[in-house]
């Protein structure tokens, strides 16, 4: 009659075998290769790298296949692998001013040194499903420019010359070290460095919604896209033994500098303020959302009223990580029968008491 629930081990093994089977799908179709994912689903790879906070296309592509295309699951796989990597040191700050630009647009200036470069963008495409892609169309080679691109200084640097925008705060002092949220526990309130790190690996959808909310009046910041640039930058590492920095390679990043109105205060004259976004790979949506959120979260520093969710540091930073969020939401499906038993007893007891009182 009663058979105690057992055999968890066998059940798990079977479930995982079934999962592997479903992942592979119809065996008469060729299996996906990592190269195909990297080449043809590049933006998915970029997202897995950005939110997985590990720049490795092949690992990210593998994670996407293994996760059956579930990007949050893929991000999780990347993060779990990242945990096991020993830390050798910190690279020098990347210099996006020296980026090899693939795309660069400014919404604040019609033309500027270095020009506007559209690059590979969905903007201005008509969103019409294209059956030719399904039939494996031949894509012609893109046009390339022959001239060496001129130097493209950052828009915020151009504005800074006039003092119209707050300066970047350079790390002048030895004690101004940049934190590392993957090595030290977050302790609120946070400084902007840690906040930006959290935003950079935060969930794209969550940040998009929050950034959007600031546009709709929940902490309105009058943003302008000073500049978005996408391209490759050099990662350099100081080797103490050598006394100079060596290049480790190049990574592709998306940077967004949002320029926001600021009325000024008793101490500071009116000037533009910044919201900043930087993301691995190509992801304008994420970089823009991040810079809106960054600006909103600076409310305390700038002496603004904190009235909207996007300005609430504990709320935003505590909930933006999709690996944390998905784990905790999904843990509800784990057994809770011990606690439920306790609640069951309580409800029975309270019902009995109520009935007694009624009689």
């Amino acid at each position: 009659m009663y058979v105690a629930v057992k055999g968890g081990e066998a059940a798990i093994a079977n479930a995982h075998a079934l999962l592997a089977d479903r992942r592979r799908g119809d065996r008469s179709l060729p299996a996906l290769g990592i190269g195909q994912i990297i080449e043809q689903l590049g933006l998915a790879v970029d997202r897995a790298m950005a939110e997985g906070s590990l720049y490795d296309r092949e690992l990210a592509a593998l994670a996407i296949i293994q996760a059956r295309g579930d990007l949050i699951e893929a991000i999780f796989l990347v993060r779990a692998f990242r945990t096991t990597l020993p830390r050798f040191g910190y690279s020098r700050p990347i210099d996006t001013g020296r980026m090899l630009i693939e795309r660069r647009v400014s919404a604040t200036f019609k033309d500027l040194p270095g020009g506007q470069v559209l690059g590979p963008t969905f903007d201005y495409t008509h969103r019409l499903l294209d059956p030719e892609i399904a039939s494996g169309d031949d894509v012609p080679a893109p046009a390339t420019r022959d001239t060496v691109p001129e130097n493209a200084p950052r828009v915020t640097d151009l504005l800074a010359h006039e003092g119209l925008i707050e300066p970047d705060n350079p790390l002048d002092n030895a004690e101004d070290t940049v934190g590392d949220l993957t090595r030290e526990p977050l302790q609120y309130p946070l400084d902007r460095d840690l906040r930006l790190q959290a935003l950079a690996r935060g969930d794209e959808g969550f940040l998009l919604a929050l950034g959007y909310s600031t546009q709709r009046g929940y902490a309105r910041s009058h943003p302008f896209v000073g500049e978005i640039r996408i391209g490759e930058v050099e990662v350099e590492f100081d080797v103490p033994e050598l006394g100079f920095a060596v290049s480790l390679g190049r990574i592709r990043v998306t940077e967004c500098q949002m320029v926001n109105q600021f009325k000024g205060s008793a101490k500071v004259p009116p000037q533009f303020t910044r919201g900043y976004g930087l993301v691995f790979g190509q992801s304008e949506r994420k970089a823009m959302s991040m810079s809106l959120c960054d600006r909103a979260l600076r409310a305390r520093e700038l002496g603004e009223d904190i009235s909207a969710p996007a300005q609430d540091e504990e709320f935003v930073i505590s909930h933006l990580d999709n690996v944390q969020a998905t784990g905790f939401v999904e843990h509800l499906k784990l057994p809770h029968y011990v606690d439920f038993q306790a609640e069951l007893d309580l409800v029975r007891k309270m019902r009995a008491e109520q009935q007694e009182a009624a009689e």
Partner: protein
Amino acid sequence: MSAAPSYNFAYLDEQTKRMIRRAILKAIAIPGYQVPFASREMPMPYGWGTGGVQVTAAIIGANDVLKVIDQGADDTTNAVSIRAFFAKVARVQTTTHTHAASIIQTRHRIPEKPLHAGQVLVYQVPIPEPLRFLEPRETETRKMHALEEYGLMHVKLYEDIARHGHIATTFAYPVKIEGRYVMDPSPTPKFDNPKMHMSPALQLFGAGREMRIYALPPFTEVVSLDFEDHPFEIQHFDQPCALCAATGVYLDEVILDDQGGHMFVCSDTDNCEERRAQGHRGALAGHRLEAGR
């Protein structure tokens, strides 16, 4: 991509283990205080025991014998999964016997059998902050702990009594440690609270997502919050375990049919099996019990 990933003993790199051990030592030095630590992503999801797994990974050695329970049982899927993880990445011996284990990682229960000196009980903790549902802000709750402002905790208990005539918290029942910190015992039923008091075993609590570790060194005073005229009480069951006839243990309700038929069996499966092996028989025993399909 480099060659196939190879993992360090117990998964975490040694740097990370040292960081976690420092947090554990601090936690032991200040019983009940939540020590922040830089929690890592683990290969299981947050909320599924990453805190406990990190604590276990930081303290486990090659000679340890590990037991993992979830809801008191060794064979629940998550317990099986975590046990298999350590068997794989640390190649340690595992057991289901409470007395044979040197480290017991648990979710939601404390074994019925009293623990002995030298054992470590590692709790998986979802929300380490006992004040969280009264005050959502970390900055504020940290201050409340620092200043020992725990009036709000009793406000909640007061409300329970005013509304229900008794305290209506049945699990994650808050405790006070050595007269100082109010601590969340993790979502164990309050039935288990007395077992924490003056336990000869070391008790470690890991909350991965919330990045906190706290601890009870052996023989620590653990007092469940209450009122003088409404003292703390544990749950009592009207009937013994239907399989091993044990009384004074925590029971799970098992639904037998859709006619409302149910029975109560031990939540601690190891304890139940051992009793049955000793010849104890409950009302519904005698059937094919040592199941497995």
